[in-house]
């Protein structure tokens, strides 16, 4: 049975990718998946060699043939996303792909056409296979692309006999995060001891509960605010969420990034040791 771990935080910049790439270096028999499809960063440290790429079609998009259009105004009246002006001019960038305009147009002047919304890749890295993707700017269907990345990662895991999928999650609580965490075996919530970090971590823990996904947590840069760290420990205790480690503030994380290495490859210092310990705990919990 393949197990999936998703690393999330709610707030961005809490250290998800730093921790995920270190786990990638420490784990054995695993596949990696970068689910932050609109700002993917894992590949910067993992230097993947792309083996297979595939075009991702998001939702279809409206295309209007002005020669056929009789300016009846039905598309404008029925579109709820403001993609048509009162003079029936189409703004494709506002189209959400619902196809209502095509349905109501009496002269078939509007057609829904496929659009390329991004690309997904299956790559090799020094730590094993990586599935990643690139969403085109401003695209709508990012949750669907995350679902595709996870599907391909599962296929790679099954065909290569790997038993863990490490998923680097996106920030937020919306469609991409939901797509990155529904149905996984475990989520690891990275919490930064700032009021913002706590606010957003509480929200993402609510999302995990909503979808009944088991969660554990770790605190990053815990020594930036000891009082907030205490509050996080209390909160997690109340919620029944195990805190598997506390990572101190340490500039070597950036040092490693600057030479495009994972923390555990770059140093043997206290930061790397803490992350190794956390990985052991996560492996136990999986």
């Amino acid at each position, binding site marked *: 049975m393949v197990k999936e771990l998703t690393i999330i935080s709610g707030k*961005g910049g809490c250290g998800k990718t730093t921790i995920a790439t270190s786990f990638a270096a420490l784990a054995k028999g695993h596949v990696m998946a970068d689910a932050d499809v609109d700002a993917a960063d894992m590949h910067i440290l993992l230097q993947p060699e792309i083996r297979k790429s595939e075009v991702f079609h998001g939702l279809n998009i409206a295309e209007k043939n002005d020669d056929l259009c009789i300016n009846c105004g039905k598309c404008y009246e029925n579109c709820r996303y403001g993609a048509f002006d009162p003079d029936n001019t189409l703004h494709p960038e506002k189209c959400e792909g619902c*196809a209502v305009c095509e349905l109501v147009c009496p002269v078939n002047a509007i057609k829904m056409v496929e659009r390329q919304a991004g690309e997904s890749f299956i790559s090799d890295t020094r730590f094993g296979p990586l599935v990643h993707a690139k969403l085109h700017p401003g695209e709508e269907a990012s949750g669907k692309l995350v679902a595709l990345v996870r599907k391909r990662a599962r296929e790679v895991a099954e065909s290569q006999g790997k038993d863990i999928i490490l998923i680097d999650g996106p920030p937020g609580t919306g469609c991409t995060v939901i797509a990155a965490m529904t149905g996984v075996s475990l989520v690891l919530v990275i919490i930064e001891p700032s009021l*913002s970090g706590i606010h957003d971590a509480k929200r993402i823990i609510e999302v995990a509960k909503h979808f009944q996904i088991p969660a554990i947590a770790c605190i990053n840069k815990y020594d930036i605010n000891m009082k907030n760290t205490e509050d996080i420990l209390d909160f997690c205790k109340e919620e029944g969420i195990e805190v598997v480690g506390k990572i101190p503030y340490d500039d070597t994380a950036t040092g490693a*990034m600057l030479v495009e290495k994972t923390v555990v490859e770059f140093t043997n210092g206290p930061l790397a040791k803490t992350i190794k310990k956390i990985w052991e705990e996560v492996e136990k919990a999986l």
Partner: protein
Amino acid sequence: MKITVASGKGGTGKTTIAVNLALSIKNSMLIDCDVEGPNSHIFFKEPMVKLKDVSIPAPKFDLDTCTLCGKCVDFCQYNAISIVGEKLLFFDELCHGCGGCKIICPVDAITEVEHYVGVIEKGGTGDLPVYHGMLNIGEPFGVPIINELKQFADDKKTTIFDSPPGTACPAVETMRDVDFCILVTEPTPFGLHDLTLTVDVIREIGTPYGVVVNRDGIGDDRVDRYCEKENIPLLAKIPNDLEIARLYSSGVPMVKGLPEYRKLFEEMFDRIKEMI
């Protein structure tokens, strides 16, 4: 005037820039469009008070009239409706509220009800009102809330929008229809990579923009070199100061805890005014 503070990468300091800029200039207001994780309000003492619920129209099915013909299932582009055996299932969190199912239903079995996706709240002071939206837990799409939030911008004030991270639709929605975009980044490989993605987006939209480097000193000069090569104005650099991080962690705005930084934001605003 409308200014959006955006960034491809999360946690680069969007909220820090937005809050402190709003506090450093006269006659401003702040609208936090990061509806999945709004944080601006944390830096204001005044409580946020609910202004309104945000909903989208969702279908309600009259199962006595429904003939299970499946036309709505085939039409729905978001796979929000399905028929399993003799049962019609509706997944409200997948629905975008387009109304297509209601139009296509041949027996008028569909009416519309409101599906609540989040709230809009207001706080701050009379001098500096703060608005934010909050997407309900488990709801995937924040754009309807962002669109309503944008309506609260007061033309007589300088409105600062705090954008969600990324380059997908919620971020783009916040970068559209404004006079200027501040792109916040860090001088690191991740920061630069995500900045280049955001620059691609903003160039497509066509809004004037400039870059703020946050935590200057933590990395190297790769962002400076990129901005110089691409001819992108560098608006300001904020040093990597642990004291700023500590203030941030306890919800104290930098210009309150370290008033010497107010000048940096005033000058940033002057530069922006020159550019639009």
